[in-house]
Each structure stands twice: as structure tokens, then as C-alpha cells.
């Protein structure tokens, strides 16, 4: 089963990644590491920061044990800006 996942970058990550969104082809169920490995290092590095929270299809999810499937939307949420 192949397909694509939509990666969404919020806040400064959108700048660092050069775009607010990116569509990535998957060759099956993928972990976070699989996805980061499929990205250029300068893009993958800020996403690996544990302060960056993840939302899968609009729900916050822990990094550990994350499995992404074709058609999913995975958002990368850096710390919010505060007051």
C-alpha cells in the first residue's frame, strides 16, 4: 500500500522548512523516524526537537509509537508565542 502524507509546519517551522505544507510519498505505514529520514537534514533537524508537538489528523499525539498512514495529515507545532 502506497500513498502520500501531508506534513503541516506551523510558526517558525514554516520558514525553516521553506513552506507551510509538504506532501510526502509513503511506501506503507511509517514512523516519525521514517518520515524525518525522507526529508533533507536541514528540514528534518528542527522537526526532531522534542519541544515540537505533533498532531495527527488534528489530534495531539505523542512522538513515541506514532504510525502514519497514507492520507494522514501530520502537523508539527513548535512552542506557541505567548504574551
Amino acid at each position, binding site marked *: 500500500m502506497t500513498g502520500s502524507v501531508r506534513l503541516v509546519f*506551523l510558526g*517558525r517551522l514554516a*520558514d525553516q522548512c521553506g513552506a507551510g505544507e509538504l506532501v510526502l510519498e509513503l511506501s506503507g505505514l511509517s514512523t516519525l523516524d521514517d518520515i524525518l529520514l525522507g526529508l533533507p537534514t536541514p528540514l528534518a533537524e528542527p522537526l526532531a526537537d522534542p519541544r515540537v508537538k505533533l*498532531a495527527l489528523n*488534528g489530534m495531539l499525539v505523542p512522538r513515541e509509537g506514532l504510525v502514519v498512514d497514507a492520507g494522514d495529515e501530520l*502537523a508539527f507545532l*513548535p512552542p*506557541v*508565542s505567548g504574551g
Partner: protein
Amino acid sequence: MATTVRLLLEPFDPAAELSSFSKAHPAAGGFVSFLGQVRASESGGSAVEALELTHYEPLTLPGMQALADEVLSRWGLDGLLILHRAGVMVPGDPIVLVAAAARHRRDAFAAADFAMDHLKSQSWFWKREKAGGAWRWIEPREEDHSDLARWELSETGN
């Protein structure tokens, strides 16, 4: 209890919102509001040209609604209003308006204060500021954590 929570992509008129909010709650004697607007200059002193708030659709508004529920569960209110802008704004534009209506003044103050501390530090908004022609992302502040910690202490005390 009437709660209004809105995420707005266009400018809004805080005076008109407050006016209809107070008229909608004739039984409440007291209304506390917080209005945040885009400042004319940043902390460093240079003139601010624009402020942009980005949000993440699936999380931002549901998060604001969950905050409203939390506020209502903690204080006896007659009404609660939470309005927050997203998008590009210029100095003087309203960003956020929180208003609490209550029979007791103290409840209204605490509810608005709590809502603001949590909106500012826990809501899904990312902010960047344009000054001198350049955009700069705004980072979380230490103060936000100490603001939140006030409420955690009071939770233990309850």
C-alpha cells in the same frame, strides 16, 4: 450561561462586542474585560509595521472552547466571551477580547485573568512581528510560565 468563543479572520469592534455582551446579561452586576491590541512599538522600541498570527484550524478553536469550559467550571459566571484574531494586523488593531459577566466582581476578575493567562501561553497561535521591513517570530516568554504557575498553586489550594 451563555458562552461565545470565536476565532476571527477579520477585524472586530471590541466596544460593540462589549456593549452587546453587557446588554445580554442584565442579571450580572459586574463585567471584567481584557482587550489586547497590536502595540505601536515592540519592546525594543522600534515601530511595529504589522503583526501576524497563524493558527492550526483543527486545534486552535477547539482549544479555545476547552479553555472556556474550564473557566466556566471554576467560577460562577453569567456569561463568558472569548474572541481572538488570526491573520495580519496593524498597530491599534484588536487581537483578543475576553469578557466575563458575574454577580460577584471577584469571580469576573479571576475568570478573565485565568482565561488570558491560558490563551496567551497555551493556545495554538504563532506570532510574528514586522519591524524595519523584516518579519521576526515571537518566542515564548518566561513570564508566561510564571503566570500559569499562579493557577497551578491555587489548584492545589482548592
